[in-house]
């Protein structure tokens, strides 16, 4: 059954809460094992084939495909990093337990998103993920995190309204909410179907924080607890917004015509605005948050490119960006833990004190900025090629120029935080605990490995089609 992937974390959720209190400190380990099992179940082909045969006999409305294979392991990586960071953090045992629970709920939601075949179920799982995420943001005490969560909740509610309105219209015009019915209604034409699609699209833009729907993201990301930031930035908004777009875009827009133009314009605006906003931030996590906005703009922009390449480009950038951004937020968490501040103006010369954090941060930064031979370079290259081949030369140029701005703000981050002479204030600083450095090292290694091995991965990606 494909819903093994859903039930596995659900079972863990129940298990954690029904087992005796004494076992609760090990909850994070259970969650970690479950995430690993989920990843293995999706990636390892024999096991997948086994699930497939079961699925055929039972016939659920869920389906495992290549996009599932992309999303579930990506979410697993971000989740594992978040669990390790949370475990190394300073929160109380109760908060840590709540974190694991909510993380599992969000993981179930994300796993659901990866396999849904109709719009309504997609909406439900997006809501699951969002509600869990909103509550995760409040796990840190204080007014600011509450404010961030409030903004997140309010705009999620607006997104829900938009998506529900869209679902209603689809029910009326298409007679159903499955992907096939929606797609056939769209290809049949008619303004109603397109208005419905546009409403759903707007909802997804809100969830994925596209410009001008992005206001909530920076507050939510930067005020969330460190581990939650890793998880949110790594996968939550991507899964509930961008991934849903990846599911829908090929069916609905076919990479050409005015429909693709909406994706291109919104994506390009997001990439540019996000990059420029990052440029003058002084808070590490805020800068990374705007950088996330910018990079998700890239993915959406890619979806407007040539159909054969668009999805592959978007998928690769999806994976690369999750890995790099989860790692950068892990680095930020390590910095916040060791220094007690996120203000870059107060930092400087930390590189000599925290070499692992500085080194991995450099790898991820350069990868996101698109420097060869790191992973980010290849995915950006694919995006530019996809745009170019579809004839969207202007957008290809925007993509290239924006990566210059990206490089600028990441270099400024590296310089302001890690380079230079160490102020006396930080002379006693030491490298963060293994809970921070291990995920950072592993994720950085993945970035390098994907970058170096990309020429071998590309035929698999394109040959399989997605």
């Amino acid at each position, binding site marked *: 059954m494909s819903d093994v992937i859903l039930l596995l974390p659900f079972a863990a959720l129940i298990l954690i809460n029904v087992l005796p209190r004494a076992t609760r400190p090990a909850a994070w380990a259970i969650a970690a094992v479950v995430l690993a099992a989920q990843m293995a179940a999706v990636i390892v082909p024999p096991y997948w084939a086994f699930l497939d045969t079961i699925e055929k006999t039972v016939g659920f409305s869920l389906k495992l495909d290549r996009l599932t294979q992309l999303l579930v392991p990506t979410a697993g990586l971000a989740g594992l990093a978040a669990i390790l960071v949370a475990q190394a953090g300073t929160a109380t045992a*109760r*908060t840590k337990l*709540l974190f694991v629970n909510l993380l599992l709920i969000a993981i179930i939601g994300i796993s659901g998103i990866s396999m849904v075949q109709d719009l309504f179920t997609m909406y439900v799982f997006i*809501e699951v993920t969002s*509600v869990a995420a*909103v509550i995760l943001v409040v796990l840190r005490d204080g007014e600011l995190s509450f404010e961030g969560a409030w903004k997140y909740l309010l705009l999620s509610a607006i997104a829900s309204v938009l998506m529900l309105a869209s679902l209603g219209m689809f029910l009326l*015009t298409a007679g159903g909410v499955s992907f096939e019915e929606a797609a056939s209604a769209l290809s049949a034409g008619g303004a*109603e179907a397109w208005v419905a699609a546009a409403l759903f699209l707007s909802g997804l833009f809100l969830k994925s924080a596209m410009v001008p729907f992005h206001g909530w993201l920076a507050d939510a990301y930067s005020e969330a607890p460190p581990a939650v930031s890793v998880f949110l930035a790594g996968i939550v908004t991507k899964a509930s917004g961008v991934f849903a777009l990846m599911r829908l875009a090929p069916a609905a827009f076919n990479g050409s015509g005015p429909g693709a133009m909406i994706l291109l314009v919104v994506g390009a605006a997001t990439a540019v605005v996000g990059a420029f906003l990052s440029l003058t931030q002084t808070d590490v996590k805020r800068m990374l948050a705007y950088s996330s906005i910018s990079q998700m703009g890239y993915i959406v922009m890619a979806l407007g490119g040539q159909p054969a390449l668009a999805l592959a480009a978007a998928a690769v950038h999806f994976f690369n960006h999750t890995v790099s951004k989860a790692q950068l937020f892990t680095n930020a968490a390590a910095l916040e833990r060791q220094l007690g501040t996120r203000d870059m103006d107060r930092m400087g010369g930390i590189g000599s004190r925290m070499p692992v954090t500085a080194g991995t941060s450099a790898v991820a930064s350069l990868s996101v900025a698109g420097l060869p031979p790191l992973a980010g370079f290849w995915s950006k290259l694919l995006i530019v090629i996809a745009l170019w081949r579809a004839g969207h030369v202007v957008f290809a140029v925007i993509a290239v120029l924006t990566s210059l701005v990206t490089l600028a703000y990441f270099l400024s981050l590296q310089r302001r935080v890690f380079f230079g002479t160490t102020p006396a204030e930080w002379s006693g600083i030491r490298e963060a605990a293994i809970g921070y450095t291990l995920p950072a090292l592993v994720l950085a290694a993945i970035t390098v490995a994907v970058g170096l091995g990309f020429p071998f991965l590309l035929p698999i990606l394109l040959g399989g089609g997605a």
Partner: protein
Amino acid sequence: MIVITIVLVVMVLAALWASLTTLLLRATIALALTSAMLAVVMYSLGATFAAVLELSVCAGLISVVFVSVISLTQRRPFKDYVTRRLSRMRRFWPLPLVLVAIGVALSFVHTPVHIVLPLPNGDGDVRTVMWTLRQMDLFGQILILLAGVFGVLVFFKKDTSDGK
């Protein structure tokens, strides 16, 4: 038709009240009233099960949950309430007029949207729909509820820590 129009108007007014009032308890009552009116509209449109569900869950159950949560909160001083309310009135008084004006304007616009209502789907009762066709949605809703529970836990922890 006249009944439905009246009910719709009451529903909109109740929704406005719910969103503009500064007293949580009144907002809860207004929300319950909105749900009740919505249930009437659903019933008159032939969606009997939806109407029943709306009335029982949204107007009933949720109101109870709200009231019980509100009972845990503290009330602001009355003077504070009056000044806040006055400022809110000053800020939002054009809102109902704007909404009405938009509605009147839209009624004159010939939109390209022609909604043709299909016949209601009569295949099976609500149990079939819920437990067989929309199984996944139900699973999702359970999860949302669970998340809500954890959310309450998070907030109550905050309350106790604030109380100390």
